């Protein structure tokens, strides 16, 4: 019985401790981000010739492209990938909105199984960063591969339909890349957002495109993990609800187990530690005053536990 107590309490302490460390790290990273944004405005111009191509696959809202076009970093482009036959409405609305015209398509043969039908660009200078790809959709990984082929810059940022870039995220990413140029980095992972990766184009090509196993063989030293949040997600109510339900269910199961196998005091300790984790996250929310970082995003590290058993996966 004593052993069960010790194990349960150690796990609780570990969870609470990790949440505290994570909240502190993210708060510090956010203040660093704000410091750079406030004090280096206008300085982030083609830092060390670093360029980023943002790929949006499964675009279903023109507002996402609007959000991405706000970035002012000069070596930056947006590649929107849509199948015009599957989603003609959104495709032609984008073409119309930005006055896009079809341009020549001679795509290199670096990756196999890519089906690009056409490329579209705008005649208007203010939209010159935008490239629209019409591809025959087979899978999200294929959409990403198609965009990688036409990407001009060294680093790729894949975004799905619900992801949006934070203000000055590209500038901050360029600072990170240019300051770590001498390290042989394959990717930068924003651990605050769980799914945000900035990946080196050459690595994707050498790996024969995107896949769930993209980072399987990569040593952790070649992936720079930053606690700075670079993106935020919208329309995540369903995800939040599911996550909240899962957390409540897990807490309830632990409590039930303790009521049966341990004693009431352990159950109280568990309840208190769950409350503590929630309060720490709430505290981060209040202190950082971060309107984009909801509580569940801070707790996404619980999903990282899977990596211990399955390795790092690139999921879309």
């Amino acid at each position, binding site marked *: 019985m004593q052993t069960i107590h010790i194990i349960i309490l150690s796990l609780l302490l570990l969870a609470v401790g990790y949440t505290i460390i994570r909240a502190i790290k993210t708060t510090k990273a956010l203040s660093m981000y704000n410091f750079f944004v406030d004090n280096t405005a206008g300085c982030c111009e083609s830092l060390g010739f670093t360029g980023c191509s943002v790929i949006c696959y499964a675009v279903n809202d023109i507002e996402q492209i609007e959000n991405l076009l706000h970035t002012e970093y000069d070596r930056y482009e947006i590649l929107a990938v849509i199948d015009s036959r599957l989603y003609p409405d959104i495709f032609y609305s984008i073409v119309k909105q930005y006055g896009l*015209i079809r341009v020549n398509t001679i*795509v290199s043969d670096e990756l196999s199984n890519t089906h690009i039908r056409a490329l579209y660009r705008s005649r208007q200078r203010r939209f010159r960063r935008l490239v629209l790809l019409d591809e025959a959709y087979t899978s999200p990984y294929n959409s990403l591969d198609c965009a990688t082929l036409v990407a*001009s810059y060294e680093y790729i940022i894949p975004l799905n339909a619900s992801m949006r870039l934070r203000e000055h995220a590209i500038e901050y990413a360029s600072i990170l890349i240019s300051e770590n*140029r001498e390290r042989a980095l394959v990717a930068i992972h924003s651990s605050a957002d769980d799914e945000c990766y900035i990946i080196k184009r050459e690595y994707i090509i050498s790996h024969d495109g995107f896949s769930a196993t993209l980072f399987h063989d990569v040593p952790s030293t070649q992936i720079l993990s930053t606690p700075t949040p670079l993106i935020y997600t919208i329309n995540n109510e369903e995800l939040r609800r599911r996550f909240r339900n899962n957390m409540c269910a897990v807490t309830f199961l632990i409590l039930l187990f303790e009521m049966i196998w341990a004693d009431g005091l352990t159950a109280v300790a568990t309840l208190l530690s769950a409350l503590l984790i929630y309060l720490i996250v709430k505290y981060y929310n209040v202190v950082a005053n971060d309107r984009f970082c909801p509580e569940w995003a801070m707790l996404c590290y619980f999903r990282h536990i899977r990596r211990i058993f399955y390795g790092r996966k690139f999921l879309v």
Partner: protein
Amino acid sequence: MIILYTYIFIILVAILVTVIMTQRTQNSRRITTDKATRRRVFYIRQVVNLLQDESRIPMNIIARTRSERIALCEAIHIVRSHTYGTDSSPLNQTIRDNGLERLLFQRIRYSTGLRRAHWLTLSSCITLGEKSIHKLERLSNSRNHAIRIASVISLIASDPQMAIQRISALRYRLSPLDISRIISLLRRGIIPIAYEPLLQSNNYNLQMLGIAIVRNFGIDIADKRLHDIISSCNDKAIVREAILTLSSLGRPLGRAKIRYRMSNMSISERKSFCRYLATEGYSVQALRTLFSEKEMHYAEALIKSYKRDLVCRQYT
């Protein structure tokens, strides 16, 4: 043991609840932030009026409280970092009368980390006395990168004649962002744009700064010096920067020494460079001298792709 854990958790929960409530109350009183912004805007107007006043009638800007003096510091910093070649002497009286130097150095002394770096950045916009310069010299060797570079910038801004000596005396390499921040001082007309001695120097920081000046100000007559660097320099990072700068200026790249340097590059570096040249608008003919027949196939695909030719069918 379990009782001890429970007590600790209870205490932590109580502390967190109190802190969150306090922070919330403070956040709800954030009208002060608006007040600070209004105050800053007020002082920005006054500082602009003072700098625009050609009659040179002494005009006093008075900040009575500490928060007003901070707002005045921020206003001076904002105005000075957004203006080019302004004569700052009318501001000296205001800085002296309001004791801004003393206030800033008090803040620098009692703060740490990013806050200290922030105050140091503000101090780059005021004229400093010798005592303050000594303090900044000590801080320029700080272990914290943000503090280190903020104090170097402040030192350069306060004593532009010594800028080259100070940069060459640095024991660490400046990052691309640091160089961009120094370039922003150049744009403000604080330090002279003498790129030749910088390019001729053997110091890494000075050479990188010289190359950045050439690129930022589009000095295409500097191509001879850049060619010298490409042929004689042993540092790969400097050579890379010089080649990329040369191509961003749109200069011919067919010289033997550039071809030799390129032959030493890895395949991925060459590909990345090829993409860079395509985005910079180089022709197929210009690239033929730099890349092999196999690589030319890739280069041609890039140049003849969406970046060059328009298919005259408009989908609107």
